[in-house]
């Protein structure tokens, strides 16, 4: 690999890469992110390689395997540059046609185009698709431009020029000031001003300091960090390099979830490439700045997303949080001043350095600048990763980008912020994606998970789901979290199983309030949010569960029974075959019945029935 010793070397290399690419008349960009790989993109990639070889196109057509493009629901995805033709749900069998028709003859394979579910029209290019059109993809757009395992691709789009500018045109103080002026706030959940964190760490006494990238994305229903680290690892490294230089650190750590094997692999390759190019190590780009990065895999504990627990884990210990009377910017990893930022926060840094803080701060709302990546999932048509300007109303995200409900059941709520966040009802969908406004409404942006729920989602069950999760993930160190969450779960379980009493609602609120004031770490302090927000907006659902012993959404097993509707049942026998408990009786072409004594209400028969004949009472 070419050693890059100066800023000039970097510029020359970039020009050479671009020059070498002039020979390509087309580029096949295929998404190789975890989502598309799950949809068997690997087979499509192999087939493309074979076809390009067979047609002798290796010198004139470039194949680029990239990280996540965001529209996972439609995967495997292929974009053909330079016209940005967009093909979705591509299978290996489609590849021959793509090469012979589109690449060799400029013809479009219509059946692979995206069909707009609203108008029914076929859409040719990515930018015309409503899912992409309504976004502002500042960070995510690069995912399509780079192969995460190619440092050349990153350099080709101007990568590491922000680092060059920082090292040779700015002082560390002015870098910190620039971040402060940009008003960038931490993307991991807390929303703490990044510049302030850097300034405190820079001023903290001590020669040895650390920077950490928190890639322990533990919120269920959120995968923004996975996609950025997996799809554009050099962007995160460049952000860390700039941060390390600004605060005076020479060692960095990336703490990444082991459940993200592709992200672990790609960041390892990126670090190796950066070392071989001289962008990590001693005297970076000919300056006096030295910096290296170590990668550590998380052990699968949600609490390790909390900064002090993460640092304990990096030290090889049990991931228990510590009181924050002295901040980690002063007393962090190995008791040294440490700046910890989330993946997306680091990913925002290079652009701020390159384009200036004012360009960053020009986007967004009053207290929340820039853009935010959100994982839009749940009961909607277009699920995937979206990036929007801060301040965008929730309704634009759910209905314009997400395309609204994915079946006939109307959208009821959106859950934001994972286990620390809350559920907002559809009446609150005018609220903008803004740190402060969502907090005031009883939820939070958190790391960016946005799970849409419809009428078939029971909000009491959602509260129970999060409490079960939090009870399981609580490290057990402090009493309020260890005992408080368990007691709340017991009460909510009583309610979902028909033993609830109205006065327990007040007790839930009291416990939640105590928990938020007394728990040791962020996990415990926010653990009551899913309960408190559902009580605030969906109190009547709790009351119906308690007073009428009914679950309006038909979810809580103890409060429902299944029956077969004789009108619509075709007596096909599918439910009888599927029932693992032999609770369904009836001969073929004869009325079927459910034996309530044997039925454990697992719901499998209902999911198998093709005629919606299994009804909930």
């Amino acid at each position: 690999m070419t050693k890059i010793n100066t800023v000039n070397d970097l510029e020359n290399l970039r020009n050479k890469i671009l020059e070498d690419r002039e020979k390509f008349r087309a580029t096949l960009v295929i998404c190789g992110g975890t989502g598309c790989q799950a949809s068997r993109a690997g087979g499509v990639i192999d087939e493309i390689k074979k076809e390009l070889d067979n047609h002798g196109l290796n010198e004139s057509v470039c194949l680029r395997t990239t990280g996540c493009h965001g529209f996972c629901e439609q995967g495997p995805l292929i974009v053909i540059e330079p016209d940005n033709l967009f093909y979705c749900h591509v299978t290996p069998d489609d590849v021959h046609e793509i090469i012979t028709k589109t690449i060799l003859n400029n013809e479009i394979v219509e059946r692979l185009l995206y069909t707009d579910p609203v108008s029914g029209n076929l859409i040719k290019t990515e930018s015309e698709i409503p899912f992409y059109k309504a976004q502002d993809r500042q960070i995510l757009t690069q995912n399509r431009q780079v192969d995460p395992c190619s440092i050349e691709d990153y350099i080709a789009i101007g990568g590491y020029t922000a680092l060059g500018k920082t090292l040779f045109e700015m002082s560390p103080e002015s870098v910190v000031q620039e971040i402060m002026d940009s008003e960038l706030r931490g993307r991991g959940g807390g929303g703490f001003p990044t510049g302030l964190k850097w300034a405190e760490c820079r001023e903290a006494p001590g020669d040895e300091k650390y920077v950490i990238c928190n890639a322990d994305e533990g919120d269920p229903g959120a995968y923004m960090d996975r996609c950025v680290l997996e799809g554009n690892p050099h962007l995160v490294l460049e952000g860390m390099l700039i941060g390390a230089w600004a605060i005076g650190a020479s060692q960095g750590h990336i703490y990444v979830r082991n459940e993200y094997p592709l992200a672990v692999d790609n960041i390892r390759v990126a670090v190796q490439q950066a070392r071989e190019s001289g962008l990590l190590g001693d005297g970076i780009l000919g300056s006096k700045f030295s910096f290296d990065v170590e990668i550590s895999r998380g052990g699968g504990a949600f609490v390790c997303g909390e900064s002090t627990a993460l640092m304990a884990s990096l030290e090889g210990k049990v991931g228990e949080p510590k009181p924050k009377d002295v901040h980690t910017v002063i007393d962090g990893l190995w008791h040294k001043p440490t700046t910890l930022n989330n993946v997306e926060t680091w990913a925002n840094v290079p652009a701020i350095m390159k384009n200036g803080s004012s360009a960053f701060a020009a986007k967004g709302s009053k207290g929340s600048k820039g853009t935010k990546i959100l994982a839009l999932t749940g009961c909607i048509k277009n699920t995937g990763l979206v990036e929007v300007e801060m301040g965008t109303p929730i309704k634009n995200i759910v209905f314009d980008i997400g395309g609204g409900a994915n079946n006939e059941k109307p959208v009821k709520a959106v859950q934001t912020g994972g286990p620390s966040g809350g559920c907002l009802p559809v009446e609150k969908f005018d609220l903008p994606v803004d740190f402060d406004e969502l907090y005031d409404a009883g939820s939070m942006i958190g790391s960016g998970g946005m799970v849409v729920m419809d009428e078939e989602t029971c909000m009491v069950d959602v509260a129970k789901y999060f409490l079960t999760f939090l009870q399981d993930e609580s490290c057990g160190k402090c009493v309020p979290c260890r005992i408080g969450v368990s007691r709340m779960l017991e009460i909510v379980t009583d309610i979902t199983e028909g033993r609830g009493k109205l006065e327990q609602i007040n007790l839930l609120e009291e416990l939640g309030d105590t928990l938020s004031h007394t728990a040791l770490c962020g996990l415990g302090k926010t653990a009551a949010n899913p309960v408190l927000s559902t009580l605030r907006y969906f109190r009547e659902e709790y009351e119906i569960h308690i007073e009428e012993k009914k679950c309006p959404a038909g979810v809580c097993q103890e409060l429902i029974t299944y029956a077969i509707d004789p009108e619509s049942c075709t007596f096909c026998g599918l439910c009888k075959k599927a029932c693992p408990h032999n609770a369904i009786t009836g001969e073929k072409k004869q009325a079927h019945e459910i034996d309530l004594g044997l039925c454990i209400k697992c719901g499998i028969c209902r999911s198998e029935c093709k005629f919606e004949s299994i009804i909930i009472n």
Partner: protein
Amino acid sequence: MHIVYMQYMCIFIVFTLPTMHFNIHHVNIKYFNITEEAHMQNTNLDSILESRRSQPHQLIEVLQDIQEQHGYISEETMATVSEELGVPLMDVYSVASFYKSFSLKPRGKNVITICTGTACHVRGAKLIVNQANAQLDVAPGETTDDGQFTIEHVNCVGACALAPVVTENGSYHHHMDSGKLRKLIKSLESKDTEENSND
């Protein structure tokens, strides 16, 4: 409060560690030779520990590699790690039992991991857990008596847009439902029967 809690943990570990029982004899180990396996594990352990000896902070990384290569972390392995890294055995056990990534029992030949993240939950992950439970008669975290299947759940695999998601021996299956899981388990069962009959 914390000290009291730690003391309790110490007592618990001192009393339980010597009697930790891994049930290895209950597992049908037809598909591997135990002597060969033990030899292979020792060689692997050496290479995992290389360049990390006497570095206590490498504990989690070492355990990750052991889990990946051996499928679980045995009592003997913990003792070796304790000695080689210079970490008290109690702390090794404490870390190995705290983090979800580590299994202290051997896992089945096929590991089926059901994602129970929020996006999967609202799209019916519970049904999939129910199906696995009913079909194999094991709850998440358990292994079938014949050692063929382990069912696990994970908080989120980050493929939320394709929910519900199941991973089977590391490969992803998206938009799962009870019927698809039933077929997947059946196909793995028949594959195993075929392999065994060819032995």
